[in-house]
Every structure is written in C-alpha cells, then in structure tokens.
C-alpha cells in the first residue's frame, strides 16, 4: 500500500489514535492498513454501535471511523450518543450507502465528515488531515494539558 506523509497530533507530535467501527472484519482490516499507512495507530476496533460507545469511553481515540449499517445499533445513532457524551469527538462516517439523507443525518448528529466505500486511501488521507486540523482541542491533548495545570 502507498505510504503517506505521517499525520501526527500537533500537540505532542504522537501518532493519531483511531477507533475503527465496522461489522465487517475485512473492512476493519482494510481501514487499519490504510490508517497505518498514514502513520496512525489503531487503538481499538468494534463490530457494532453499542461496542463502539463503550470502546470510545475506554480509549478516547482521536478519530473514529464509523460504518453506518451495522447490527444492534447503527453507526449514526452510535455517533450521536458518543458526541452527546464527548462533544469534541471526531467521527468520520465510512459507508457504502452515501445518499444525501444519510450524509445530512450523520452530520446533523455530530459526525465531522463522510466518505463512501470503496474507500480510496488518498481521499481518506485528505479527510483525516482536514478533521485533525483542530487537534489542539483533542480529548487526549486537553486531558494531558489539564493534568499538567
């Protein structure tokens, strides 16, 4: 896979930490390979929306890549619940179903961006850079700053 210039957290220059949520093991593996080619670190995976919420609480990743169509709880609902609890959460929806209503619903409920499958690495890379532009407000960075104060 093509290698990209690493996207790092600007606060501490550490790799961006990802939570990958998709009911397909295959899709999770593919996305993991992609974000690793961006210099990122996959800190957790989840196969449904319910697990995504608990994993977010546990790991507070910098970015969540979230599928929409999943068993138990769909991605848009999970994104909404995560953002209610963690307003700074950066969630990028990754779904093969990319119609306008879905995109609007996801953005209205707190997702930062949307990318349609099949995902092109160069497209996801640009989205990650865009979503991380405000990374001074990252939950990890903010927590570290607060602890040091």
């Amino acid at each position: 896979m093509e290698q990209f210039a690493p996207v790092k957290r600007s606060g501490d220059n550490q790799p961006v930490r990802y939570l990958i949520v998709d009911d397909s093991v295959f899709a999770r593996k593919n996305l993991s390979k992609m974000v690793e080619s961006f210099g990122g670190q996959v800190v957790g995976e989840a196969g449904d929306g319910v697990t995504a919420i608990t994993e977010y609480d546990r790991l507070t990743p910098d970015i969540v890549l979230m599928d929409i169509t999943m068993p138990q709880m769909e991605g848009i609902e999970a994104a909404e619940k995560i953002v209610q609890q963690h307003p700074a959460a950066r969630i990028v929806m990754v779904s093969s179903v990319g119609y306008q209503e879905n995109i609007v619903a996801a953005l209205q409920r707190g997702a930062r961006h949307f990318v349609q499958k099949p995902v092109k690495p160069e497209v996801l890379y640009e989205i990650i850079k865009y979503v991380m532009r405000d990374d001074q407000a990252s939950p990890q960075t903010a927590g570290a700053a607060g602890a040091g104060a």
Partner: protein
Amino acid sequence: MRMELIQPFLNSADAVLAQGLESAVTIDNLTMDEQAYRRKGIAAEVSLSGDVEGRIIFDADEKAATSFASRLAGAELSSTDDLVREAVCELANQIIGNAVTVLNDQGFHFRVHPPSIHTSEQGSKSSEDTEAVVLCFSTVRGKVYMNVALRYHQRSLEQAAAGR
C-alpha cells in the same frame, strides 16, 4: 423488473470490482432466472426493505473469491479462510450500497440490511411479482454473479398511482 432498478446494480458492480481489482470488468450477460438460484461459489445475500424490497445475492466462484480476497487483503489466503467470506460480504455491501445510493437519489427510499453469507445451495424461486435477474461479470480473477430479485412495494405503487 424494470431496467431502472437493474441499471444501478450493473454500474455499481462494474465500478466497485474494477476499482478493487484495478482492471477492467466486462458484463457477460443478463438473464431472467425463473428457477431457484443455484449458488456458484461463495455468496453473500443482502436484503432491502422499503419502496423497493427483495434481496440480492452476490456470488463469486471459489477461485475468484479467494483471489479477490487475497488481492484486497494484500496477502495470500486459502479458500477456507473466513476472511474470504468476509471479503465477499464486504464486496456485496459496497456494490449494493453504491447502487442503493443512486436509487435513493432517484426517489426510492429503502433500508439496506447487513450482508450475510448465503450458505444454502439453492435460493428461493422467483415469483410473479418478484422476478430475478442474473448479472454475470467477467473479471481478471474469475466470474462473478449477481442475482437481483426486487419488487416495488405495493403501498409505493398505490401512492405513485394516486399521485398521477
């Protein structure tokens, strides 16, 4: 079944397979299937509900499925590897999701259910109101089939008629 329902699946399969395999895909034929569907290799089934309802079976012969999965995973897999079945499900999800996106933007509203492995040797027969169309694609990795059995939901037909 109207061509307006089939065309997005043709276009989407063509685009997704060509992108995933980085090579051209050709559409061999398109036939009506009145018999129970016979699985050719490793198959995934996706159900739709809403204005249009039914199911689509995405089916790749075992060699093609293993070859796709290995290509997409970037590692040599064996046909018994669960990842091959996962790859077939994910390809079905992408092709059908992209087609549904186009249909939704044309005004059809429906829900896509997560794909599942289609394990039985035979699928259900098509019926008077749910015709099945089989699309056959040739790729550099082998043959791929899609059995599309969809129908307009009765309520949607009545609403469309009332709107005229």
